[in-house]
């Protein structure tokens, strides 16, 4: 999928993606010549079709987690499917484990609401996102930013 600024005859470049609600996926593309920005909006079915392919519009900066599509899309997953699943361990609270980022109480509470089928994977994705960007503390705002930036529509 590419976007052409017909007036400038230039290929537009990906700028950012957002999840504005109601299942919409929004991706913005900008003309490098004139600066015009256009938005691609997908309806919920189209958003789901993109997710079904296991690809991310705008690309991604972190490697896919094992069984990422299954874990993010299946709604009937068993709670004890994975040994990594489950609530945060005491050693993983507060200051973080192994020198990892610190999870605020609000971020922990939000993570605890994620189904255990997918929680371990989601936790690792947010931790990797923070680590890659030198972020010391994981907050709900950082989780929102990661979700948008990484294309975690299903999580």
């Amino acid at each position, binding site marked *: *999928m*590419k976007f*052409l600024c*017909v007036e400038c*005859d*230039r*290929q537009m*470049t*990906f700028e950012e993606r957002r999840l504005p609600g109601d*299942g919409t996926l929004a*991706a913005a593309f900008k003309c490098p010549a004139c600066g015009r920005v256009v938005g691609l909006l997908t309806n*919920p*079915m189209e958003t*789901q*079709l993109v*997710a*079904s*392919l*296991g*690809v*991310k*519009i*705008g*690309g*991604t900066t972190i*490697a896919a*987690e*094992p*069984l*990422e*599509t*299954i874990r993010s*899309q*299946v*709604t*009937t*997953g*068993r*709670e*004890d*499917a*994975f*040994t*990594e*699943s489950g609530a945060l361990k005491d050693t993983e609270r507060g200051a973080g484990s192994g020198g990892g980022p610190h999870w605020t109480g609000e971020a922990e509470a939000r993570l605890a609401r994620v189904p255990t*089928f997918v929680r*371990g*994977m989601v936790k690792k994705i947010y931790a990797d996102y923070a680590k890659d960007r030198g972020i010391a503390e994981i907050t709900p705002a950082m989780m929102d930013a990661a979700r948008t930036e990484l294309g975690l529509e*299903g999580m």
Partner: protein
Amino acid sequence: MPLRIRTYHELTEADRSGLGAQVGAQRRRVAERLAPVQRIVAVMSGKGGVGKSFVTAHLARALARAGRRVGALDADLNGPTLARLLAAAGPLAVTGDAVEPVAGADGVRCVSMAHLLEDGKPLAFKGPENDAFIWRGALEAAALRELLSDVAWGALDVLLVDLPPGVARLHELLDLLPAPPDVLTVTIPTVESADAVRRTLHAARERGTRLLGVIENMAGPQFPGDAGDTLAREFAIPLLARIPFNPGDAVWQALGGRL
């Protein structure tokens, strides 16, 4: 003045989304994960209820008892039974970039959707249900891809892939694998089974797979017919085994010896 619209391939500047490249990376991940697997054998049938999973499980165990390193992937995502047949109970351990298969009976390494789904619940996905016919097939293919690429199958002599009835999942498997797998075909003796299995044998051959032969399961007076012989003759492939109800270990050992 008409607009000047170029083609997709005429636009050669950096494409950050790189959807094609992402799909290519998915394929490479499958190929890399399966590189240590010496042989992949798909167990298929055009007909349901002929005992594909039963044959897969017992063949896997016979091969393992003969000293082979065996994996068994349950590709029947909506009716998974292979894990129970192999006594391979979860949970699955996530280690780094992969999930470890569960060691079942006789050490067969198994992964099944049964490891992932709540007991008694169907495979259900998020997404707008009114349009599910558009995206569900893509999601099931993605799930199959991940069961191939995201499981630490390790070095295996053979990976058996237990397919659901019909031919759709075989096509998905063929699209995902770097090379066509060998194919074992299971039928029961009846003419109805021959009719259904014949179609999938044609499809498998047309896609370039090597047909290893036919296994006639549930042989005996309960199901009259000669589907095994008929299909073997039509496709010039061997009838590898005629398996009665309640077969003993010797039957599976003999079948394993023919692969």
